[in-house]
C-alpha cells in the first residue's frame, strides 16, 4: 500500500534561510531536506518544536519560497496555484473569520475550490455532518471552542474532495474522542485512496496510523522510512519470562550469553539478544524450569525519535 505508488509529494534538497534582525542576518531553518510521500499512504512528518515542520509545510503550500531546492505536489511546482483544487490543507491552530457561520465559511471555501454550484450546499452539509458540527452549522465562528474550530479546519481541507491532504497538527485542541475520530477519518481517507501528509508531535498517533515517517530535527531529516521498519530497526532484544529457574541454570545462562536476569522464584525475566532465545529456552526447559512468556522488545517510535534528537544534538 505504501511506498509503492508514485511520489505525489516530493521535496528535494530544500534549503530555507530567513533574514532576521536589523542586520538582516541569515538564519538557516531548513538544510538539505529531501523526502517523498507516495500515493495512497499516510506520511508522518514529525519533529520537535522549531525543527522546521511548519516551514516545510508552508513551502509546500506556496506560502513561503525556498532559498534553494525543489518542492512539488502531484508533479506540479508548489509555486503554482491552479492545481490546488487537488489538495487540502489544515494549518496548525486554524483561525477563521469570526463573524461568519460554519456553513458560510465552508461555502466560501467550496467556492474558492471550484465546487459546482449545484453540489455546494449538499457538500457543505456532508462535511458538517462528517466533523459532527451539523448542530452548530449556523452559529458564528467567534462562539466556537478550539476543538470546534479544528473540526471546521478539517472540513474546509476536505470540502473539495482533494486527492492529497496536508494536516498540520490535526489532533491539536481535540479531546480523546475527537482525536480518535480524526484518526479514523485519516484512515478512511487512506482507504478512499487519498494521500495524507500529517505533521504532528503526537508520536503514538504516528505509530498507530502512519505508513511512513520522516523525522526532522534542527532543519534536517534525521531518519525516514516505513514506520514498521524504523521501529523494527531498533529491535535489539528479547525477553523470556520463566519460573522455577534453578541456580545452576541461571549461572549457565549468565555465563554463556549476553543477558540480564531480574526477579526470582515464580517470575524471572531474562533479557537477551533475539539470536540466543532458542538456546536459552533449551537450558531453562532441561533444568526443569517453566516458560511463561517470550516476547520481542521493539523500540517505540519515541525511542527512535529521541535517538534522532540526541544525534542532532551531537552534531552541533
Amino acid at each position, binding site marked *: 500500500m505504501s511506498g509503492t505508488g508514485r511520489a505525489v509529494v516530493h521535496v528535494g534538497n530544500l534549503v530555507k534561510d*530567513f533574514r532576521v534582525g536589523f542586520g538582516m542576518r541569515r538564519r538557516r531553518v531548513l538544510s538539505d531536506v529531501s523526502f517523498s510521500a507516495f500515493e495512497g499512504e499516510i506520511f508522518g512528518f514529525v519533529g520537535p518544536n522549531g525543527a522546521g515542520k511548519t516551514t516545510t509545510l*508552508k513551502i509546500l*503550500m*506556496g*506560502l*513561503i*519560497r525556498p532559498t534553494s531546492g525543489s518542492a512539488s505536489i502531484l508533479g506540479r511546482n508548489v509555486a503554482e*496555484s*491552479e*492545481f*490546488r*483544487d487537488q*489538495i*487540502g*490543507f489544515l*494549518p496548525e*491552530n*486554524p*483561525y*477563521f*473569520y469570526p*463573524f*461568519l457561520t460554519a456553513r*458560510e465559511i465552508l461555502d*466560501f*471555501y467550496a*467556492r*474558492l*475550490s*471550484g465546487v459546482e454550484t449545484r453540489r455546494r450546499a449538499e457538500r457543505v452539509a456532508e462535511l458538517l455532518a462528517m466533523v459532527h458540527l451539523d448542530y452548530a452549522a449556523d452559529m458564528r465562528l467567534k462562539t466556537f471552542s478550539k476543538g470546534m474550530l479544528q473540526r471546521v*479546519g478539517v472540513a*474546509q*481541507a476536505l470540502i*473539495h474532495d482533494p486527492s492529497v491532504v*496536508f494536516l498540520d497538527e490535526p489532533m491539536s485542541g481535540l479531546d480523546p474522542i475527537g482525536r480518535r475520530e480524526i484518526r479514523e477519518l485519516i484512515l478512511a481517507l487512506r482507504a478512499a485512496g487519498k494521500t495524507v501528509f500529517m505533521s504532528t508531535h503526537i508520536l503514538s498517533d504516528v505509530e498507530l496510523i502512519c505508513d511512513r515517517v520522516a523525522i526532522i530535527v534542527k532543519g534536517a531529516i534525521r531518519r525516514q522510512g516505513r514506520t514498521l521498519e524504523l521501529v523494527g530497526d531498533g529491535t535489539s532484544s528479547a525477553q523470556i519470562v520463566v519460573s522455577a529457574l534453578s541456580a545452576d541454570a541461571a549461572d549457565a545462562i549468565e555465563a554463556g550469553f549476553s543477558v540480564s536476569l531480574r526477579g526470582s522464584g515464580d517470575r524471572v525475566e531474562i533479557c537477551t539478544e533475539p539470536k540466543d532465545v532458542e538456546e536459552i529456552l533449551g537450558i531453562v526447559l532441561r533444568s526443569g524450569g517453566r516458560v511463561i512468556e517470550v516476547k520481542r522488545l521493539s523500540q517505540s517510535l519515541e525511542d527512535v525519535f529521541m535517538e534522532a534528537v540526541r544525534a542532532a544534538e551531537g552534531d552541533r
Partner: protein
Amino acid sequence: MKSLIRILALAANTFREAIRNKLLYTLLGFSIVMIGAGVLLATLSYVEVDEILQDMGMAAIRLFSSGIAIFVGVGLIHNEVERRTIFTILSKPVSRGEFLVGKWAGLTFTVWLQLVLMAAAFALVSWLAGAPLAAPHALAIALIGFELMVLVALATFFSSFSTPMLSSFFTFGLWLIGHLSRDLYLLGQQSDQASVSRLAGALYAVLPDFEIFNKSLEAVHGLPIHGFEIGFAMLYAVGYSGFILVLAAAVFSRRDLK
C-alpha cells in the same frame, strides 16, 4: 471565468465580514452624526447659508468616508496574514493577485455602501435645513466613490507589505498629496528650469490626482459637471487602481507569509 468566480467569492466574503463588524457601524454612526452636526452648524451663518451648508456636508462626507477607507484598508491584508486566515485561502487554487483584488473589491463595496448611507443622511439633513440636494450633488458624491476606490487600492498596496500604522501614514500622506498634486504640477510648469518642470511632470504621472474626483464646488454652486469629466474620472479610477493593484500583487507575490 474561474478566476472571476474566486475574486467574487473573496469580495462577497470581505463585504459580509465587514458589514457584520460592529466597529464599522460605530465609525459610520459617528461620521453621520458629524456630517449632520456640521451641516446644522452651517445654518448659523448669515450669508449663503445653503452653499456653506452643502459645502460643509460634501467636505465631511469626503473626509469621513476617506477616513474609514484608510482605517479599514490598512489592516486589510496585514490582518489576514497576522491572524493566519490567509493560509487556508491560499492553499486553495487562489493566486495572491486574485486574493488582493478580491479583498480590494470587497472593501470598495463596503465603503461605497457607507458612502450611500452618509449621502442619505446628508440629503435628509439638507432637506430639513431647507436646502435640498439635486442631481449635481449626487454626481459629486458618486465621484467621491471613485476616489474611495483608488484610496482603498493604495491602502491595500501598503497593507500587503507593511504594518497598519505605517500603512495609514503612507496612505493618508498620499491622500493629502493627491489633493495637491495637480497644484504642484502646475507650479512646476511655471518654473524657468526645465528639470523642475520635468520632475513635476514625472511626479504628477506617478502620484494620484484626487482633485479629478472633486466636483463639490460645481455641485454646490450650480456649475456644470460635464459628462466627459465623469467619464475621465471613472477611467482614471479604474486605471490607477489597476496599476496600484498590479504593483501590490508583484510585491505581495514575493513575500514570505511566515
